[in-house]
């Protein structure tokens, strides 16, 4: 079972903290891959919150093709975080040419566009780059979004961090999600490494999604170009989150009602019974079944955790005002926030969504039996 760790902090932290937590939980993952998601960035990126940042892995030719492509559209490099790989990678980590984290200035012609339109175009460009990379095998693009950096690589999390020199002042973030991968079902594939990202929404999961095929079919048939990929059955969790909030206009509290709706008899006595019944019927194809713990990050910098309807996976949230973390195991939490009130640690159960908002002052627990916020 993969191990998950996510942290949200008022003062930006190095992602090493999250990777250390994964290392403490290393009995639970086999070091077959690591994924990092960072937002609310510190360091040099703090001063360019609006600039879209491209994260990915490139070959030398891939970089050239990227530059040509971006130049053509009018994107200019604003800031580049170069990760020079001087030595041969340690065993288990593949040889790569360039790990790229690059912030861009928008093309001049985009100035008149609304933020919404800009974002829509960013997604199209990322998908295009992803496809170009797939065709030539020379680029892997994880994200292209303002204030977001993603790094994924095959191998043991700490070795990867060392190899990529992740422990440096320029890489800091207020929201960090990290996954240590336990390879079970698939050949080791970078695309299957969590977290996944779509238009500002990101999730990572451990578990098994037995409803993958119907969910995938349903998302693909929504005719939204972002719903594609699905090399991993967990990618759908990110897309369901996106669909819930960005497409249906619902709040995060509804996410759990979509992926794991209440039983019919519990809906009948719920104050929002009518809404929930409609939600359950109309979003039936998005119900997950099987063991899953989902940790996700929202565009407003909230972090959250939900569990499957039988609560078959471990997960705990704890911290103190200013910094909170979500972890698969308590030892991960202990490693990173030892000076917290442990009696306030909370393990979300089968009905709970645990949310730490952008103010990072408390853990909000919503139970599915509570009334829902209204549509926005």
């Amino acid at each position, binding site marked *: 079972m993969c191990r998950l760790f996510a942290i949200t902090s008022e003062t930006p932290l190095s992602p090493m903290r999250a990777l250390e937590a994964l290392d403490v939980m290393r009995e639970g993952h086999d070091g077959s891959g690591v994924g990092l998601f960072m937002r609310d960035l510190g360091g040099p990126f703090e001063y360019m919150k609006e600039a879209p940042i491209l994260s990915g892995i490139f070959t030398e030719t891939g970089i050239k093709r990227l530059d040509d492509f971006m130049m053509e559209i009018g994107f200019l490099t604003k800031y580049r975080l170069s990760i020079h790989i001087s030595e041969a990678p340690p065993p288990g980590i593949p040889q790569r040419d360039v790990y790229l984290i690059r912030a861009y200035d928008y093309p001049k012609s985009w100035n008149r566009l609304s933020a919404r339109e800009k974002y829509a175009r960013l997604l199209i460009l990322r998908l295009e780059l992803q496809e170009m990379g797939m065709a030539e095998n020379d680029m892997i693009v994880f994200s292209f979004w303002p204030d977001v950096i993603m790094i994924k690589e095959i191998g043991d999390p700490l070795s990867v961090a060392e190899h990529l020199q992740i422990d440096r002042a320029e890489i800091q973030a207020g929201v960090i999600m990290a996954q240590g991968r336990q390879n*079970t*079902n698939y050949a080791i594939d970078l695309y299957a490494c969590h977290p996944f990202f779509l238009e500002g929404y990101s999730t990572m999961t451990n*578990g*098994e999604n*037995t*409803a*993958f*095929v*119907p969910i995938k*079919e*349903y998302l693909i*048939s*929504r*005719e939204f170009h972002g719903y594609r990929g699905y090399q991993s059955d967990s990618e759908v969790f990110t897309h369901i989150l996106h669909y819930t909030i960005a*497409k*249906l*206009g619902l709040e995060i509290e509804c996410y759990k009602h979509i992926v*794991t*709706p209440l*039983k*019919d008899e519990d809906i009948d006595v719920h104050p929002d019974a*009518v*809404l929930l019944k*409609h*939600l359950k*019927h*109309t*979003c*039936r*194809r998005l*119900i997950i*079944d*099987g*063991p899953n713990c989902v940790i996700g990050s929202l565009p407003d910098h909230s972090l959250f955790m939900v569990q499957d*309807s*039988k609560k*078959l996976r471990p997960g705990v949230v704890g911290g103190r005002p200013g910094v909170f973390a979500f972890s698969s195991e308590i030892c991960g939490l202990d490693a990173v926030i030892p000076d917290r009130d442990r009696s306030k640690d909370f393990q979300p159960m089968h009905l709970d969504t645990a949310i730490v908002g952008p103010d990072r002052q408390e853990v909000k627990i919503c139970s599915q039996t509570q009334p829902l916020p209204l*549509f926005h």
Partner: protein
Amino acid sequence: MFSDPAVAPFSLSLKDLPWWIDWDNSKCTLCGKCTAVCPVHAIELGVFRRRKVQTPLNFSAQPSQETSLYYGIRQKTDPASACIGCAMCSMVCPNDAIIPRRSDEADKLRYHVDQGGSPRNRGGRRNVSESLLDRIKFIRISMLTDPALDAGRHEFELKTLLGRVLPPEENFRRMKEREWIPPIREIYPLIIGSMSFGALSPNMWEGLQLGVAYLNEELKMPVRICTGEGGCPPRLLRSRFLKYVILQIASGYFGWDEIIHAIPHMKEDPCAVEIKYGQGAKPGDGGLLMWYKVNKLISAIRGVPMGVSLPSPPTHQTKYSIEESVAKMIQSMSMAWGFRVPVYPKISGTSTAAAVLNNLSRNPYASGLSIDGEDGGTGAAYNVSMNHMGHPIASNLRDCYLNLVKIGRQNEIPLFAGGGIGKNGNLAANAAALIMLGASGVQIGKYIMQAAAGCVGSESDRCNICNIGRCPKGITSQDPRLYRRLDVDLVARRVVDVYLSFDTELKKIVAPLGRSTTLPIGMSDALGINDPAVAERLDIKYVV
């Protein structure tokens, strides 16, 4: 030269018949029960002659002979009285002295059943025992990659939806603006399919209804039953049990006068209205209730004279195009109940099903589609329709489902599949296979007749005389002397047994797949078959 009148072209010997009667003289007590019970008078009391020749060993005495008579059972060979293998004679024989046996080669009777120029018609089934559904395996078993669920201990929600499910965006828009949202029923995915009052005897109908009511009221299983085209007894129409009933309207509109008049008095809405356009057992042919079965009760409920055959036209007379008249019919039926009742068509499996579906997807009032495959059963049909017409259900359903996936309406229009489910007894496995191929639920007919009422029909052309009103078990007869054989309460009890055991088996299938909170509709990655062509056709895994 004159022919020998005793041997006509259509004269048959016992060897030419499909079923032979084995009668054991040494056990028979000549009680006459078998001949009395035989529904087709295939056997009669026979007088046989026995001759005994005695040849003495010494030459002085003359050989002699002794002739005697004995009485026994004689099997008739004229086509009209050919044994149907029902084995009622065995059932009633106190001494186990008689049993029908299948002949050892294809019979010759089949060439002569059309005496008078009328081709064979019968009830029952297609008489082909092979089943593709039986060959589909459930290959995804969660064990170590994640904890498997426990069919006995975990909670399962195995309901399905019948009704038009709007896309969430549209649904919420209508909720906000207080517009009409199509009705949706949460029902059990195993439906008792359309068998009419008339095709079935009153006791059978009552037994089924009683069983369904018990399942709902006592066991909280939302099982539904469809009336078939024959109306609905007035008392049921005005009772609260109507909500467990899907009313069927078909091209003969039998019984609908009564139903329409009862609408103002209904305490509950029916579960749904099924508009039958076709039936898997006899595609392209309408319903048929032969005159034998149209007695006083049936004629009253259906609003027709007694003793006349009731063939429904093959198509609805008002139907000239799917875009207009079918849409209008669906709309009118919805309107009759104030748009509170789901209305869906039932068609026979056909290569044109996808076109029908496409049209339905554009009709805002269509709440589903029921497809009845070639293995569906019937109370009466021509042999040729039953044996040679129709489309296998698996690929028909799968094509329709994938078509819906392609246009993104897989959650919108539920597909229900019927025809041959459980034909070899594997009810839950067959149902689960169809669900994972894309069905929201399945409909059964023959299975429930066999399991709940002891129908003796089988896939080797046994019995199958449901059409002539002489059903030896009283299931499809309107003759009180026959249907009083059927105990209403025992039928109900068996209906309940069937559903409870089906439920357990279904859980045994879905639990290892890791599914418990939704039916695994379209979960095709869990299916495999050992035939590459079938695997490719159905888009499931090829496993050997």
